[in-house]
C-alpha cells in the first residue's frame, strides 16, 4: 500500500492511497480535508449571534431555541448529505469499476460500472470560471455506435485532485485496461 500527499484544486491537502490486491485489481482512495473546527465554530457563532440579536429586538425566547434547533439540524444534514470524507475507485480487471463516496456521518454511496460498458479512462480538462481544471473521467461505450461515447462519468468530484495525482491514478488504470485489451485479443484469436 502506498500513500502520497497531494494538493486539491482549491489548495487543500489531500492524501492518495494506492493498494494492489492482485494483478488485475487495484484500489485508489483520495481522502479530503477534514471538517475544520474553526469553520464549524465560526458558523455556529454567527448563527447564534444573529439569533441573539433577534432576541434582543423581539424579546421572544423562541428565537433562541429555534437557532439551536437549526444549528443541530443543519450540522446533521451537512455531515450526512454534503461533507464527503473519502472517495475511492476500485478497478477489478474483468468485472468492472466501482466508485465509492463516504460521507462524514459514515454513509457510503456506491456506483458500479461493468467492464463491458467502459470504453476508456481519460483525463479531461474543463474551464471553470477563470481556471482550467483537470478531472479524471470514465467514458462509457455507446451500444449503437462502437466508436461513440454515450456518457462521461467524472471521478473524484468533491476532492478534485490536481494533475499530478490524477496522472498516477490514470497510469495505474491504463495498465489494467491494457490487460483487458490483450485478453480480448487472445480470445478472438482462439
Amino acid at each position, binding site marked *: 500500500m502506498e500513500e502520497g500527499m497531494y494538493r486539491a484544486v482549491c489548495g487543500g491537502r489531500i492524501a492518495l492511497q494506492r493498494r494492489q490486491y*492482485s*494483478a488485475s485489481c487495484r484500489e485508489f482512495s483520495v481522502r479530503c480535508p477534514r471538517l475544520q473546527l474553526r469553520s464549524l465554530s465560526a458558523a455556529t457563532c454567527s448563527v447564534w449571534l444573529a439569533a441573539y440579536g433577534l432576541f434582543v429586538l423581539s424579546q421572544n425566547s423562541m428565537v433562541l431555541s429555534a437557532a439551536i434547533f437549526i444549528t443541530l439540524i443543519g450540522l446533521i444534514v451537512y455531515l450526512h448529505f454534503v461533507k464527503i470524507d473519502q472517495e475511492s475507485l476500485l478497478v*477489478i*480487471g474483468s*468485472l468492472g469499476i*466501482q466508485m465509492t463516496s463516504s460521507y462524514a456521518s459514515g454513509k457510503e454511496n*456506491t456506483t458500479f460500472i461493468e467492464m*463491458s460498458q467502459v470504453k476508456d479512462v481519460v483525463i479531461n480538462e474543463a474551464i471553470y470560471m477563470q481556471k482550467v481544471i483537470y478531472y479524471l473521467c470514465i467514458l462509457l461505450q455507446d*451500444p449503437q455506435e462502437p466508436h461513440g461515447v454515450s456518457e462521461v462519468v467524472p471521478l473524484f468530484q468533491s476532492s478534485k485532485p490536481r494533475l499530478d495525482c490524477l496522472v498516477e491514478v490514470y497510469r495505474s488504470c491504463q495498465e489494467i485496461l491494457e490487460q483487458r485489451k490483450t485478453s480480448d485479443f487472445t480470445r478472438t484469436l482462439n
Partner: protein
Amino acid sequence: MVLKVFFPSCCATAESGLLIGRWIPEQNSAVVLAVVHFPFIPGQVKQYLSEVQRVTQIDMCVLGSWSNSKQEKEEVLDKFLEDLSTIFSHEPWIQLSKEGDSKFWSCCIFQKCPSSPKEDEFILVYYDQRKVMLSQLHPTDSLTTFADHKGNDASKLGAVFDTVAKSKVLFMTDRYDDGPIKLTHWQSEGVEASIIVELMKQASVPVCMLLTFLLSLVSSVCKSRVLKFWPLSFIWSKLSTCEQLGHRLEHLQIISSNRKAQNQTQLMRKANIFVSLLIDMTLGILLMSWLYRENRIGQLADTLIPVADHIAKELQDLLQWLMGVPAGLKMNRALDQVLGRFFLYHIHLWISYIHLMSPFIEMILWYVGLSACLGLTVALSILSDIIALLTFHIYCFYVYGARLYCLKIYGLSSLWRLFRGKKWNVLRQRVDSCSYDLDQLFIGTLLFTILLFLLPTTALYYLVFTLLRLLVVFVQGLIHLLVDLIDSLPLYSVILRLCRSYRLAASVKFRVLEQKPGKPLRLLMQINPLSYGSVVQTYRLTTYACYPKDSWSSLCKKLFVGELIYPWKHKEEKLD
C-alpha cells in the same frame, strides 16, 4: 485469462463434493448453485441435472469439485477428485479446496487443451444466495438499451441474477429428503415457508371470486342504459367523485382478477394497488368515525348555510363597490348599474334556492358522509364537488363577464380594422385592405368609439370575476393533487425498500476481502438497493393526472382575449 467463480457463502462450510451450477463461456465465469455430496452415483447425478435443466431452462452441469478437508491434505481424495473430471467431462474443470479453517482457498483448473500458456488468474466472488434469488435487478436506461443490442453478451450481473432466480426448483430439496442426491444450498437446512402466507393464499381464491362477482354486478348497473341519458351522463362526467369511483372500481377489478401475475412488475403493481386501497379505506373510515362522533355532521350542516350566506353577502358588497367608484376609477354609470343589478339579482336567486334547500341539507350531508368509508380519496373528491357546487354562482358570473368581454374585444378588433380601412379575409386567413362606403365608415367609427369607452367597465367586472374563479380553481386543483398523490404513491414498494431493501436492486457493490499473495482474489458481492426516488418513479401507479393544460404564456393570452379557461385538464388516457 481471468476465471471468475461466483460461490454462495452458505456453501463455504459444506462437506466435500461436486460443484453444480452454470458455466457462462462468453464471460469466462462460473455460477455455483449447490454442492453435491458423497456418496453419489454419477448416472443419477446426470439424470437429476437433466431433469432440473428441463424444468428451469438453464444449462446446469457439474462444474468441478470442492474439497473441504479438516485435516491435512489427503492424497487419495485428490486422486479421486481428479478421476471425477474424466467422468463428468466439463471444460474447464474447476477444483476448489479449503484446508481446515483457513479463509484462503486454493483454486486450479484442468483443461484438456490449454488455450493460453499464461498462468490463469482466479477471482472468487462470494454472494448471498437467498438475497440474490429474491432480488429483482433494475438496470438503468442505458444498460437496458445496451442489453437489447448485444443480446446475451450484455450484463454479466444480469446473467448471474437470472441464473440464481430461475433455479428455485433446485433449492426445494433439503437434507431431510430421502433422495439419491444430497445437496447443500441456502435452503438445505430446511425449506422456508410461512404459514400465514399459505393461509392467505388459500383464502384469497374464494375472496377473489366473491369480489369479481360483486364487481360485475356493480359494473353492469353502471353501464345500464338508464344512466346514459343526456342530462345524467353530462352530470356524471363533470363530477370528479364519479371519476374517482370509476378509477377505484378498475383497481378492484385488477386485484380480484384470478389471473396470476406474469412477471415481477405486474406483481408489484397488484401489491401496490392493494396496499393503496387498504390505506385509503382505513383513512376514510377514520375520517368517518371522527365526523360522526359528537354529531359533527350536524354542526357542519348548520354552519354550511351561514357560510353560503356570508359568501353571498361578500359578493353583494363587492358588487356595490364596483357600482360605486372602485379603486378611484370612474365607471360608465348606466352600464355599471345594469351589470351590477343583473348580478345582484342573480345572487338573490341563488340565496333563495339555498334557503329552500336548507331543511334537507343535514340529511343529504349525513348520507353523503357515509360514502367516506369507500376511501379518503372519495371523501376529498366529494369535498371538491361540494366546493364546485357552492361556488357555482361565481362560475356563472365568470362566464357572463368573460363572454361580454370577449364579444367586446372581438368587436373592437374588427372595428379597429375598419377604422384603418382594412378587413379580415376569411378565405385567405389574413388582413386585406378594403374600401368602405362613407355610411359604413361612419357607423363603424361610432360603434368603435362607444365600445372603446365602455371597455374599462366591462374589463373591471371581468377582472374581478376571473380572479375569484381562479381562486376557486386553485383550491380545487390542490384537492385533486392530493387525491392523485394518494392514488399513485406506490406504498408497498416504498415499504419493501425500507424493510427488505435487497429485493429492489439497482446494481451490486463489491468489497475486497482479506488477501493472501498466491491465492485467488476474494471479493464479496452485495446488493446495492435502488434509491427511494427511483423506486417511486419506477412503480408509480397509473392515474388520471390533473395537470395544467396550458403553459403560462397561452394562459395569459387566453385571459387577455377573454376565452373561457379550464386550466385543469383530466387526461383521457391513463398517465403511466
